[in-house]
């Protein structure tokens, strides 16, 4: 059997599956065919169903008059506005809840996560109870519970009336918590308030440059300036001086009781408060666990090495532990922000008009355009989530330990 020629291999059909050279192509072709067939089947069904119902795919309803009111809005909107604008109001409402919720959740979550690691037994246990309690009960239940808390246990506006009222406003008679919502004082921007704002902005810029200078100074000479107190002073003193110099250009307008309800001031509905609070408390429990595991992920040797270099405990935390822990903490934290944003679609449980309430709720029901409305709705959420994924990926790339 020493023939110089290799046997010429003829192609057989069985080799499509048996031969590793062809198998991957075969599998992919089969997968592609199945995929196309399924998509075709779904689209075909949809077209047939739409034809049966006498419908078409048409987005022109977005430019038609909506005809319904939205009680919580950030941009001008009346029931004469279009469905498109209603959707925009909803999108902004969703983003509002997401934005405030993320900030509150981060603050509480970091706090809870660090305190759970406290050496103080009772504090650590209390935080464990907080985290387990919020994590193991559905967020929808938290939303309706907090909403019930706000509407059932707060006084009605009329309780604030009379010489000897049952309820009174808090914070120097400025804020009224009622079962319809909370009324805050609103600022009135008088003449010259533009200078105040400008001063404030200039202080912020000054703080930025000061911190850069202080850092450079420390790198160069090792001298440390009291960064916090100087920044604090820079932030407040010029603005306060200008404020009195201009003769108090900004005043507060207090809400006051008129008839059965409060007038003036900023009015925030209970639905918004309940939703934001519930989402941020729920998410903060998850963030607390992330922060805890992030700190635990940094080995003890780092702390010991830092203290052997002579750093104080506060500096060890801010210069050694946190910068390393952040690498572990930030990506899951951002994905929790995303979860919060998606969970805000539960707003319907308390009647808050987010994008699912306007576009995916009333608009959908009024126009009967389920397919279009759901497509737009999903598109919106997908855009947000892809954007956030992109941010996470960017973060991961730029904060990866170099050379690993």
């Amino acid at each position, binding site marked *: 059997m020493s023939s110089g020629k290799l046997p010429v291999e003829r192609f057989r059909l069985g080799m499509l599956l048996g031969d590793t050279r062809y198998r991957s192509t075969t599998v992919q072709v089969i997968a592609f065919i199945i995929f196309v067939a399924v998509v075709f089947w779904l689209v075909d*069904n949809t077209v047939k169903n739409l034809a049966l119902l006498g419908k078409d795919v048409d987005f022109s309803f977005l430019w038609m008059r909506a005809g319904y009111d939205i009680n919580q809005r950030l941009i001008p909107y009346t029931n004469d506005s279009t469905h498109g604008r209603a959707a925009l109001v909803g999108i902004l409402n969703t983003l509002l809840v997401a934005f405030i919720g993320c900030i509150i959740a981060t603050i509480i979550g970091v706090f809870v996560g660090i305190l759970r690691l406290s050496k103080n037994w*009772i504090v650590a246990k209390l935080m464990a109870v907080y985290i387990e309690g919020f994590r193991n009960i*559905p967020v929808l*239940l938290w939303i309706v519970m907090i909403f019930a808390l706000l509407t059932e246990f707060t006084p009605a506006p009329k309780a604030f009336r009379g010489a000897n009222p049952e309820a009174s406003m808090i914070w120097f008679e400025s804020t009224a918590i009622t079962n319809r919502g909370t009324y805050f004082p609103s600022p009135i921007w008088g003449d010259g308030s533009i200078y105040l704002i400008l001063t404030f902005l200039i202080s912020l810029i000054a703080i930025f440059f000061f911190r850069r200078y202080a850092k450079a100074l420390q790198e160069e000479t090792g001298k440390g300036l009291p960064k916090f107190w100087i920044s604090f002073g820079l932030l407040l003193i010029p603005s306060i001086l200008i404020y009195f110099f201009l003769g108090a250009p900004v005043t507060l307008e207090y809400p006051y009781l008129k008839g059965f309800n409060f007038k003036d001031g900023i009015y925030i509905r209970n639905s918004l408060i309940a939703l934001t609070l519930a989402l941020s408390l729920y998410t903060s429990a998850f963030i607390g666990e992330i922060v805890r595991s992030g700190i635990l992920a940094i080995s003890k040797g780092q702390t010991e090495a830092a203290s052997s270099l002579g750093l104080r405990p506060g500096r060890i935390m801010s210069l050694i532990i946190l910068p390393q822990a952040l690498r572990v903490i930030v990506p899951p934290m951002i994905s929790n922000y995303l979860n919060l944003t998606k969970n805000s679609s539960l707003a319907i449980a308390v009647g808050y008009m987010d994008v699912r309430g306007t576009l995916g709720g009333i608009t959908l029901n009024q126009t009967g355009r*389920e*397919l279009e409305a*759901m497509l737009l709705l999903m598109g919106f*959420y997908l855009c947000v989530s892809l954007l956030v994924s992109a941010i996470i990926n960017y973060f991961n790339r730029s904060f990866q330990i170099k050379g690993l």
Partner: protein
Amino acid sequence: MANISFVREKSIPQLPPPISESNTIGWVRKNLFSNWLSTLLTILSLYFVYICLRDFIPWAYGGIWSAGSLRECLDTNPDVACFSVIGARWKQLLFGFYPSEEYWRPILTFILLFVSVTPIFSQRFAKYFWFSLIYPGIAIWLLWGGSIWPVCSIYLTFVFSGLGFYIAKNQFKLSSGMSLMVAIISLIVFYLFIANPFVALFGYILPINLVVVESSQFGGFLLSMIVGFSGIAASFPIGVLLALGRQSDLPLVKMICVGFIEFIRGVPLITLLFVASVLLNYFLPPGTSFDIIVRVIIMVTIFSAAYMAEVIRGGLAALPVGQHEASAALGLSYWQSQRLIIMPQALKISIPGIVNTFIGLFKDTTLVSIISLLDPVGLASLIRADQKWNGIYWELYVAIGLMFFVCCFGMSQYSQYLERKLKTDNS
């Protein structure tokens, strides 16, 4: 040596630890009052606990269990809980509108659930795995009722196609691919031509029937359990496949899997549930309509499968590449190496994530109340719509919250136990 005058021959007995270190006072000083900050925190926490318990304990402990309506409760004592609503409606909270003379069926299903998961979690009972396989059929029959034979015919279809595969492979010595083809063909043949006559024949000869319960009668924790556990059971294998697809070398398969996972993870579950309730009929052949609970289960399964895939992908990524290479060097095929080498390790790493996904899924079953299915949260508002219980909030919420807490907390504790048990400590 001579200048050493004295060497102790026996070690002296150890002294007891200082009193400030060993007893309760020592513990308290170390853990509660070690410095001024800790002392401040301790006092604040104790005050907070006191505030919470001061109002809650008398409210809950003095709760009224035997009043006919909220009015009666308030007349007796307005400051305590009115748990009578739970006494009056606990059956509804647990079973929804399931007919009360059939309660033994969901209860039996629930008990059998534990029997069926035992072989999965315990090595000792692994030989009873066949029961885990037939459990879904039993559960469907018990819960929805009707004749037993349609469920049997589905199982027989699979048995028949498995038999086809076995015979083709062993008797006729066909290749795996061809045997698979035979199995699929026999599956279709059985389903199209034999299943219906079989059901009709046996339904005639041996009618084993249970009272039919409509899906609209399901509710309460029964509904949460059904949606939750079927979602959990179904999403796990799909999640594994999606994770493998995402890690695969075949660009097209990978692309499809990535697109699917990212799409599902990008939209809130509530929009998917809306798709299930209003849009799914568009995507199916005209005239098909099927049960709303099944539709919800499908959507919940798809949703958690995408999350599961990401968790398992994390586990796969954490495995050193040497494991793949070593299994290839041993001559294992792709599926063999996945089954014997890769998956057992990857799944072990991803246990916490998997259980978290399960817990999330179970909590998310409350969302079905938004598409007006009567899960516990939906039932709470329904009970409140009754004139007798109008205005009752906390008692119901506390009861529902407690039930969910017990289930979810139990699952998370079990996962921690599993993690400790499976830890090999060689990594």
